[in-house]
């Protein structure tokens, strides 16, 4: 089985290197094809591993070679394929295969075609390292690696100022979180003496709760950055500057879920510190609502989906925080499928609309883009959690888990958010595909995407529809590792009321969205309507003024402080002190050189002055010594001797 592990891991790497060879050359179609094939190979290997594990095989643990070893520290390149990581591997390879194939079409006309595949495959490789590593340091490699690839891909169209800015923002924000993670890793090392999962997990039980709490907090800070949790969430929406396949793969399906994966992977830790868990759950719930609210009014197609991603990540954290790790993982998987699908659909729309992103400028596209319409509708249904689509199974379980654990506030908020989710998802669908064909005003001639792109998307469509059936087998597979237990609401009545109630609530939200946005006569908002001027609308459209706050109170002061440090402190104080000392010496020389007037008479006077000074000193000393023994001893004690 080990060779499949290595194939799964290194096929993307080979793909990346292969494509990298052609980065500086014009588009070569074969790079896309070969990259896709290699990723597919990885998918196949992952599938084989999945089947192996599913059949009850032992987790595979290999140690490729030593990475760092010094003092007591020993970090190998070790890889572990167990039920959790194989799930992630499946998600990653599957979505990325789809995205690779899709991107062949999507990036068709782009100059950086080859470069794109290089980055994309590099991302897959990093992600594989992240999920397959058997220790925290290896995880961190992947962690930073995906951050790097995310940077490269967000800023893929680097000629756009906004793209490169967003790339840097994403990287730096992630770095802030990475520091937390690094500190968490240090804490683990100095307290357990190892960074291997097995060793560390075993040692956690012996540590005192305070230390564990700190470890938990710092690791979670890491997770917060990667998964864009409040307050480090702003980068995710800005990251939509990248090409849409990137958004689908990285900023919806895989990378952003790495934080969730970290929490799930460290379940042994978090189950020991339920307080931190509760905090995570609360934050997740908050983010779910918070992000959904921003999605309500946004006028950027991709940002709406991004906020929905954020919201769904909140769900996952809520589940993970409450100890329902397997539910979180399952939702992660299901979400990956339908959200990637949604993004790819949005990509089709963008292609058709010549990169127009405002859904108010579209409308009625279902005629031209039938398949896309179907796919996006189904993905939205799945996202909204309508039976029998994937979202229903995963999301409802989270609600059940919250309810079963008697966290009714969390339950209530999540339920409400589910309604919002349904509303904004279908607001989007309605605005894009229904109603009048507003795009004609802008002289755009939309067309359906390439056939093979649609075919490529089909596996995702399939999984978005049927993923729910895997819930039971999945549960059984991961049960041992995640100490999972099924959530059962004790009363069937309650369960049914909840299910139906949720479905009806969500259904109503969908209908409302259709009613409001599928009608004809929608105008492109121009900032005059009453809604647009209401306080809440402004608050939401401005993302609660958080980016403004960051710009105004963090970035700008940092920039100004830097300038002050350089121009005032470094040049005016530190350097000026050094130069000042030299200057004083020099100017003293310059001033006192007049002593050397060149006049012989002055010179003679200096000599006499010297003599007289010496004599005065001699007399003072002599007289003192003669008349005072005390003074003599004091003088001799001056310490010159």
């Amino acid at each position: 089985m080990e060779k499949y592990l290595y194939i799964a891991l290194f096929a993307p790497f080979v793909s990346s290197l292969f494509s990298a060879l052609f980065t500086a050359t014009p588009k070569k179609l074969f790079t896309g094809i070969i990259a896709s094939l290699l990723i597919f190979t990885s998918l196949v290997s992952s599938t084989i591993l999945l089947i192996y594990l599913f059949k009850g095989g032992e987790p595979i643990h290999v140690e490729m070679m030593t990475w760092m070893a010094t003092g007591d520290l020993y970090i190998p390149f070790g890889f572990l394929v167990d039920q959790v990581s194989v799930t992630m591997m499946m998600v990653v390879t599957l979505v990325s295969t789809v995205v690779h194939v899709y991107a062949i079409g999507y990036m068709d006309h782009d100059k950086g075609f080859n470069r794109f595949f290089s980055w994309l495959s590099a991302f897959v490789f990093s992600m594989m390292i992240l999920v397959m590593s058997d220790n925290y340091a290896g995880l961190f490699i992947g962690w930073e690696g995906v951050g790097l690839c995310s940077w490269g891909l967000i800023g893929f169209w680097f000629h756009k100022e906004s793209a490169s800015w967003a790339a840097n923002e994403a990287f730096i924000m992630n770095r802030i979180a990475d520091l937390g993670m690094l500190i968490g890793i240090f804490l683990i090392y100095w307290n357990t003496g190892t960074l291997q999962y097995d060793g560390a997990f075993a040692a956690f039980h012996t540590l005192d709760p305070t230390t564990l709490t700190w470890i938990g907090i710092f690791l979670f800070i890491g997770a917060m950055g990667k998964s864009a949790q409040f307050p480090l969430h702003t980068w995710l929406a800005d990251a939509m500057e990248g090409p849409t396949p990137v958004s689908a793969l990285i900023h919806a399906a895989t990378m952003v879920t790495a934080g969730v994966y970290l929490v799930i992977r460290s379940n042994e830790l978090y189950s020991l510190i339920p307080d931190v868990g509760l905090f995570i759950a609360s934050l997740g719930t908050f983010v779910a609502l918070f992000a959904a609210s921003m999605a309500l009014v946004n006028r950027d197609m991709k940002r709406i989906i991004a906020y929905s991603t954020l919201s769904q990540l909140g769900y996952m954290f809520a589940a993970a925080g409450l100890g329902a790790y397997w539910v979180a993982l399952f939702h992660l998987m299901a979400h990956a499928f339908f959200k990637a699908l949604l993004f790819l659909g949005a990509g089709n729309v963008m292609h058709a609309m010549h990169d127009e992103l405002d859904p108010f400028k579209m409308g009625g596209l279902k005629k031209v883009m039938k398949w896309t319409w179907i796919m996006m509708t189904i993905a939205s249904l799945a996202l909204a959690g309508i039976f029998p689509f994937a979202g229903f199974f995963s999301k409802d379980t989270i609600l059940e888990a919250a309810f079963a654990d008697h966290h009714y506030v969390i339950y209530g908020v999540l339920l409400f958010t589910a309604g919002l989710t349904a509303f904004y998802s279908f607001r989007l669908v309605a605005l894009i595909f229904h109603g009048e064909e507003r795009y004609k005003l802008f002289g755009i001639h939309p067309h359906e995407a390439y056939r093979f792109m649609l075919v490529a998307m089909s596996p995702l469509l399939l999984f978005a529809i049927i993923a729910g059936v895997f819930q039971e087998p999945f549960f059984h597979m991961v049960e041992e590792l995640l100490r999972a237990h099924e959530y059962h609401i004790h009363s069937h009545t309650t369960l049914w009321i909840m299910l139906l109630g949720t479905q009806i609530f969500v259904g109503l939200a969908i209908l409302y969205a259709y009613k409001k946005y599928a009608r004809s006569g929608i105008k492109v908002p121009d900032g005059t309507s009453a809604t647009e001027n209401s306080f809440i609308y402004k608050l939401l459209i401005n993302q609660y003024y958080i980016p403004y706050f960051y710009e105004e109170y963090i970035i700008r002061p940092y920039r100004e402080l830097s300038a002050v440090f350089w121009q005032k402190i470094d040049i005016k104080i530190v350097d000026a002190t050094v130069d000042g000392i030299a200057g004083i010496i020099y100017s003293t020389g310059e001033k006192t050189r007049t002593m050397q007037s060149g006049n012989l008479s002055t010179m003679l006077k200096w000599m006499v002055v010297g003599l007289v000074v010496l004599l005065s000193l001699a007399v003072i000393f002599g007289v003192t010594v003669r008349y005072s023994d005390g003074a003599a001893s004091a003088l001799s004690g001056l310490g010159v001797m």
Partner: protein
Amino acid sequence: MLSPINISMESLNLMTLAPMLIPVVGALLILVIDIVKGGLHKSLYVVLSLLFLVMDFVAIANASGIFMTNGTTLGVFDVMLIDGLAILAQFVIVGASMLFIPLAMTHKRFHEFSYPEFFALFLFMIAGFQFMVATDNLILVFVGLETSSLALYTLIAMHNRDKSFEAAVKYFTMGALAAGFFSFGAMIFYALTGSVEINKIALVLAANGYADIGFVLVGVAFFLAAFGFKLSLIPFHTWAPDVYEGASASMAGYMSIVPKIAAFVVAMRFFEFLVHSGIVWLDVVLYIVVVVTMTASNMWALVQTDVKRMLAYSSISHAGFVMAAILIGTTQANSALFLYWILFSFTNLGSFSMLWMSRQKHLPDHQSSDHSYDKFAGMIKTAPVAALIMGLFMLSLAGVPPFALFWGKLYMISSAVTGGYTILALIMALNSAIAGYYYLKLIVYMFMKEPVVANGGEVYVTNATLALKTIIGIAAMGTIFAFVAINPLLEFITAFVYNSGY
């Protein structure tokens, strides 16, 4: 009634006179040759002088052999005192003179070398210095000092241009005042102890426990002023920059070494017993003088625009640096003084010789003085070898290892450390850093600037002859490969200084 004087020739130890007599004989010979047949080429006199100096050197070496077996020797009614200090100092004096005299073989003609008297006076001067260091009798010190000084004034003036006369007059006048100080100081010690021999003075003072400390200090003050003049310690230094500038570069280099080592030896003989007797006053005063001399002259050197004048101030600074050895007063410090001075003489003579080699008769318009910094701008482009050698000397003077002077500084600072003068050691170290600036300035001009006026580089070797080049080569070799010689030198010097009781 007057009793007949019975003196055995053996007790006179006339051999102790040999090293001093050789240059005297040489000088007389030169005078006689000139009388018998005038108009002979200067090379004859150069070679003759060199010959006598070599003989002198051999005689000193012979004396050092005697010292190693018999220890300190007194001679000729105990006036002559041949101890380690005397021998070491004579080595430096004669050695430096041997390096100096070939510098007379310039390509251009300068006035002083057209006189046979120049060489005669030069040899007399050496004899004077030798007498000065080889005695502890203040009278002989005084007479020796004046002999050499008078000769030196003349040698400076014989360069025969306005600045050299001015320099000679200034030097002479201040020298006369210093002579007054010296005689007054000697008078006070004579009044105190009834003796003019340093050993006896020390004995008597110690015997009555420095009862008249006030008197002693007044005497010390006068001596300090007198030696301060010779050693160019601030504020008695004012002659030095002007005289160095006025004298020819070769003479200036010579002056920065030989008169000072002679004065150092006398100062060492005189102050060492005072320092050791625990007179706090002397410690404090010397401390101040040393620090002020090092620091202030460094500051003045910073602001000079003429290389020779800069080197003059730097020589003052070096003298102050070395004066610290007398303050510290340990065997290590005194050995360090000699080590430093030997290494210094190579480097400093070398750098002054470089100036000498580039001495023009007529200054071009852009050049304000003989050796202004501008003159050396862009030297690496036109005269790379000369520039490299000059740079080497500058680095050595700045104390950059492994060149000669670094080892001197190392040992000197180490002696301050072992002597317990921590702060002084730091000041000495930091002064080297300040000094680095002006040596660097010349390097900057030579290596990093463009020439002010394009020239073919011949200006830097305008005066070059084989003799000059040889001397510079020797100095350069001595500067670079000093590290090989440090150990034997150190052992030799330490043995001599230690066995002389210093």
